[in-house]
């Protein structure tokens, strides 16, 4: 009998500890509880959000090169394919639907990753070193606002048509499975949320390393190896490369964009100027306009201008086939290009001269094509990794639009445009006309042109050919996977 008791006792003992035993750690994955247990885990989840933004589903292709640029009529669509459907704003096609479905989902998937981090970070505040708590939380909250603003720019009404009490898009700040908490909010609520988050981010990022160190220092972590404590280098490797992170100035630049979108020119100007005038400790500018030497080196995305970019480590393998395949839609007609870049007037435009932006190739049996080279280096085999999302030139344009047309001159000089255009900025109408042309030249392939049209509610595009645009064309339809719950 004794033996039975012993056996039973053993069984009982094993049963009580079984809950722990039944908790298995997967090998290819990490549990939420475990990854958000260390500072490194938080860092990795934040980086994960940036990596997702740099995938082809978002800023690696779709939300900068494909969707907004096709809607802005910047490419040569191939009939009966996705490119033609988007150019014609025909979003009922299956291909279009699934593209919008993907983009929508990827935006919110990036947001849910940020939210999972934001939800946990306060409880673990004491664990962080080197000011990383403020840095990570600030970037995450700022990025959340930035992404929602991007979604609003795509799926919301044109600013001229916004009724603040109408439903806009969901603004998601939690990780949840409750469908009721994932429904669209009104424009008022979404706009408030965006600016609240941006303000919070600005506060949290008030010790951003970008304020302390110059971009030249931050972009050369190689010098960290033999670290010289006397020299001003960030102590933490995580503090380098601020331009590809949602830094303090990215918050300001987003704010400038945001205020301009809602029509608050004063605040837009204020924020744009704050970025333009930002100085390093030695008095040099934080961000400088790109010049001839940069353009000559094939840096047409102007790295020194990038206030916020994402690093796309797979850019060559995704972008090269997009731009350099025969039969690609991402080309443009020479005549149209000459018009767009006003080639007879601005003969020395650093972007357009010497076939820097476009390369003309003859494809046997197909004809002559202009292949787009902004993202590819001169040999067109490798692509740049940093996909710009906000550049300094946009801040100049915002300032110009908001009453500081004198600043336009700095931009014009940097791009080596003909000086005569300085004098053309006499009225708001003239400024608008000039900016339309400059947005096209400056942000070709970057996706900003469409938002310029949308913000100013153009009812007709005049380049490359005349195209009438309706109010509905400006607003992407909310995907069915979301709308069926609304």
């Amino acid at each position: 009998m004794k033996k039975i008791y012993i056996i039973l006792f053993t069984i009982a003992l094993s049963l009580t500890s079984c809950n722990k035993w039944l908790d298995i750690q997967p090998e290819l994955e990490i549990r939420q509880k475990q990854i958000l247990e260390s500072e490194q885990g938080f860092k990795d989840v934040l980086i994960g959000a940036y990596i997702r933004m740099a995938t082809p589903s978002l800023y690696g292709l779709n939300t900068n090169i494909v969707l907004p640029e096709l809607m802005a009529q910047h490419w040569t669509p191939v009939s009966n394919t996705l490119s033609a459907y988007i150019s014609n704003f025909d979003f009922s096609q299956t291909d279009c639907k699934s593209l919008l479905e993907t983009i929508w989902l990827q935006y919110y998937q990036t947001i849910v990753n940020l939210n999972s981090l934001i939800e946990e970070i306060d409880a673990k505040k004491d664990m962080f070193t080197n000011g990383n708590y403020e840095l990570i939380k600030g970037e995450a909250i700022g990025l959340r606002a930035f992404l929602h603003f991007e979604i609003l720019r795509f799926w919301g009404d044109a600013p001229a048509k916004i009724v603040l009490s109408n439903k806009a898009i969901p603004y998601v700040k939690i990780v949840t499975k409750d469908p009721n908490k994932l429904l669209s909010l009104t424009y008022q609520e979404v706009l408030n949320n965006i600016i609240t988050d941006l303000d919070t981010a600005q506060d949290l990022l008030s010790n951003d390393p970008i304020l302390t160190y110059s971009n030249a220092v931050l972009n050369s972590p190689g010098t960290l190896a033999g670290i010289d404590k006397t020299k001003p280098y960030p102590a933490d490797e995580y503090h380098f490369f601020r331009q590809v992170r949602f830094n303090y100035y990215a918050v300001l630049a987003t704010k400038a964009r945001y205020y301009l979108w809602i029509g608050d020119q004063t605040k837009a100007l204020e924020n744009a100027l704050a970025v333009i005038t930002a100085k390093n400790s030695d008095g040099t500018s934080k961000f400088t306009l790109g010049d001839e030497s940069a353009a000559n080196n094939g840096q047409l995305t102007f790295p020194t201008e990038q206030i916020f970019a994402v690093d796309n480590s797979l850019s060559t393998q995704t972008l090269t086939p997009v731009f350099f395949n025969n039969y690609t839609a991402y080309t443009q007609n020479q005549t149209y290009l000459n018009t767009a870049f006003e080639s007879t007037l601005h003969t020395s435009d650093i972007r357009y001269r010497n076939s820097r932006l476009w390369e003309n190739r003859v494809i046997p049996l197909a004809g002559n094509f202009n292949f787009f080279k902004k993202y590819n280096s001169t040999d067109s085999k490798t692509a740049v990794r940093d996909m710009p999302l906000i550049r300094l030139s946009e801040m100049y344009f915002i300032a110009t639009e908001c009453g500081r047309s004198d600043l336009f001159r700095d931009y014009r000089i940097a791009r080596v445009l003909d000086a005569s255009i300085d004098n053309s900025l006499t009225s708001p109408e003239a400024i608008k006309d000039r900016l339309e042309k400059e947005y096209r030249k400056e942000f070709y392939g970057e996706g900003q042109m469409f938002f310029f049209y949308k913000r100013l509610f153009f009812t007709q595009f005049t380049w490359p050919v005349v195209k009438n645009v309706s109010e509905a064309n400006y607003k992407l339809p909310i995907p069915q996977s979301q709308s069926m719950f609304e």
Partner: protein
Amino acid sequence: MKKKWIRCATDEKSTLKKLFFSFFLILFICEAIICPSELSAQNREQISINKKNVLLDEIVKDIEAQTDYTFMYSTDIGNGIGRISVNVTNISIRQLMDLLLKDKPYTYQIDNKVVILKNKPLQPSTQTPADQKKVKINGIVTDANRDPLPGAAVMLKGTKIGVMTNYDGSFELNIPEGNNLLVVSFLGMKPKEVDITGKNFIKVALENAELSINEVVLTGIFKKSRESYTGALTTISANELKAAGNRNILTSISNIDPSFNIVDNLDYGSDPNRLPDITIRGRTSMDVNVRNLQEQSSVQNTSNLPLFIMDGFEVSLQRVMDMDEELVENITILKDASATAMYGSRGANGIVVITLKKPETGKLRVSYKGSINIEIPDFTSYNLMNAKEKLEYEKAANLFYSLYNTTNQNLQELYNKRLIEVVRGVDTYWLKYPVRTGIGNRHNIRVDGGADNFNYAGSISYNNIMGVMKESSRDNFTGNIFFQYTLKNIKFQNDLYIIYNKNNNSPYGSFSEYTRANPIYTPYDDDGHLKKILAEPLASSNSPRKAGNPLYNATLPTRDDGSYTSIQNNFAIEWNINADLTLRANLGITKQDSRSDKYLSRDHTSFDTGDYTGENFNMRGSYTYSTGYNFSYEGSATLNYTKTFNKVHQLYAGFSANIAEDKDESYTIQARGFSASNMTNLGMASAYAVGKPYSTESHSRRIGSILNINYTYNRKYFADFSGKMEGSSKFGSNDRIAPFWSAGFGWNLHNEKFIKNLNGINTLRLRFSYGTTGSQNFSSFQALTTYRYFGEENYKFWNGAYMLGLGNPDLSWQKTNHADIGLETALFDGRFRMNLDYYDKHTKALLTDINLPTSGGFSSYKANVGEVSNKGIEFDANLFIIRNSTKHLTWSVGGNLAHNVNKILKISNALEFLNSELMEDAGPNPSFLYKEGQSMNTIFVVRSLGIDPATGNELFLNRFGERTYTWDPQDKVPCGVNEPKIWGNLRTMFRWKNITLNAIMSYRAGGYIYNQTLVDKVENISLSSAVNNPWGNLDKRALYDRWQKPGDRASFKNIRDFGTTYASSRFVMKENALNLNSLNLNYEFNKEWLNKKLKMDYLSIGLYAEDVFYLSTIKQERGLSYPFARKFSISISARF
């Protein structure tokens, strides 16, 4: 987290408490009974034994353990006594020996604590008066199932004259004339008196006094009496299994029990390397990933796979398929909750319990079984055109016509060229090229024996299956060693299995390439060289497509094979604590390593595409190497208690605790770029394929405890209760411990007086059971919110992680409530047997996707919603038309029938969303929508009114009941269920002397099938499609049954119409089918002759024919990628 943990822990405690309580109750009862015997054991005289159906050795061991007597007897005497049952308490050795040897031709003598057994002195002849005339009488003694009983005592009543029956149950006895009453007895059976007046041959069937081995139910955990078991099950003996086929265990089982349903795989036919899809009592699970739902129902069945248990341990479907049939002693299929509740979360899909042979005590025996298996391809379902018909079709379909003069001219020339070919006699029968008559062989040698307290068995087998596609094969090497050692009342067993499997896939590719090849083309050119390309296209758009020669790739060096080695060791200790209480502990460990290699030569036609031109030209050729690793263990401890109180109350109780862990891992590496065609080694590749290495991992653990109580009153009424608490790592953290239970009641009507008085009823049993079981066929980490690191992508010098999905800590197992009512009858001494079961399976908390607004970041998460019901009837009957022992003639017929109605009761929003998407789907394939109120197998198509004789266009009936020529996906309505209304087997067994003939046929009736052949090979023929191209070969009906001119009353649309054919009810057809599954003729050699001439125990020769014919009301191609085969085999079994 902490809080949750504590809550769970207390839950456990309370369950434990309950279990303990029940336990103590049992223990209390035990002690009350055991204590006196413990005391009496002190004086070493009193003996208590309760053994059923054991060999003398075991009883002797028991006596030796309880007393200090030792025994001496020969093995012959041990065998002569045979299996006995004894249940005594506190009796002396002499009393016990008298009881044991009662009616046996042996006696004993006790000499100084040594008990010596010996033969009884032969008395009859000496005592018979010389003048008395003697009569010779022959006979045979069997049990109730007509199985011979060796070692039964046949005695002349009131005398000491008697003999023992021989091995085959026969006896011969000389008795003095005038004595007419014989008493036939066998321990464990009711003795029978037989009047022999005027007879010289008698046959005696003894009825069970107690349980015999066939009346025991093996559930894989407990051993229970069939008489008082409330569960629904099918038991298959080794002999039945042998008679049902010679292929693999799975097909044999389904030949016997139709509720074990192997889903017909039209695509893969008789491919030896394909695992079949199996369901027991209908489908209860939907595919876990809604997005994976395909229009083919076959994809969805993997989650309905039953659980396979071998000697108490879970084994994979693959292991069962590759298992050596010769090792199997017995198979039990558990179907209802009463039988499966003890398997908890794994039980809902039914359980197949396989019990392996144990060695028999006695001298060394060597058995051999060998067979030669022949597989012959079966093309009867193919109805392809010959060259003449093909050309006729091409002309009728207007392929040689063009509006443009020059093209028209070219096409006319092409027609003439083809006509010349046909006239000169070209008519290539492509089907013959990739196939062969596969001749495989199979051998098994088994050695077993043992004496005293040590038994052993070992076997080695080799099975070489040669498929009908050239070079496709499957080889299994199996080895098994079993030891059993008994030390007093403790028994140790160890069982070791090793399987090595090697499988080769045919280099000839898919069979469909050959069924599509045009008979006007020849594979070889005039010089006899193999062509790479059969036809080059003309310059115009309307011309034959470029057609490669499918035989070409087969001539290249290729490799497409896999192998695995699996080692399983099961160790068990059985401790007979006392007469009523047994403790058994098991530990099973399995390890499996596998690999697969697939090499495509650089010359393979799949590299003739744009991806491999230019810079990538040198990247031709590919090699995929995968390796897998599996380790699992399972341990259990089981306590069994049996006791009869006051002769009428029988109690059985069992408690078992088990623990298991399973870990799987696989890695895949792909390489490309082979400089030479014949370099079939991974290391010769010039680069890794694009992308990164790939791996999978799964890991799960479970723990559980089971309580099972069975109570029988006076062998009339009985009740069963099983309860299980199970914890599994797969469940969400909020719900980690799951309870499962079942209760059953039964009534042995045949033990009631009012039935007993009716002659002819041997068994009449009613049983009812209800219970809840679960299934958890989902991946290990589905309940967790987890993160994964990006692999290829990085961000400057940082790495990033992302959420994989929204975990669901509430995720739990699917719950199936299962009710079963059964009736078992046996009439007229077992001449007629019939079983009937009705079941109602209600599966709740089906695991499916729940859609979320995509702004949540994920489109769905997994949750338990959805309900499915399966109701059905199973019926089985067997009748002995002739059962004549005098003439050694037996003929029996039998059959069974299964009927199941599947109905979806509730679906998730994700499925509704998917339905709405599928309802917009246009295409030739029907939709299988999961709609509430419909079966999971419902075919949704647009109703068709046939082909309009005037135009050759199809006329449809839309959802409003109006006629229309336009096909609209929204008009799809349910048009039949792709599941037979009834299906089952018909069998017959005929035995005359040493010859046995077995035949098993299967039938299906009343189900609807969407005839894919009609769609693919008759109607939906498209000039742009590579597969159903008019230039390739087609079904004859494309020529003969299509509309050609106004007035044609055709079943199929205009022969010149190459537009898409959409899914319509024209292709939904009712299927009635009959298949001759197995035909077996067996001859057993006469034992005496064998003994004398060959010194052999047993020798038999069997001839098998399987899948001989298949009749169906639907003319449809079967075996698309791999043909079906007819199988013949000859086998020989011998024992020395």
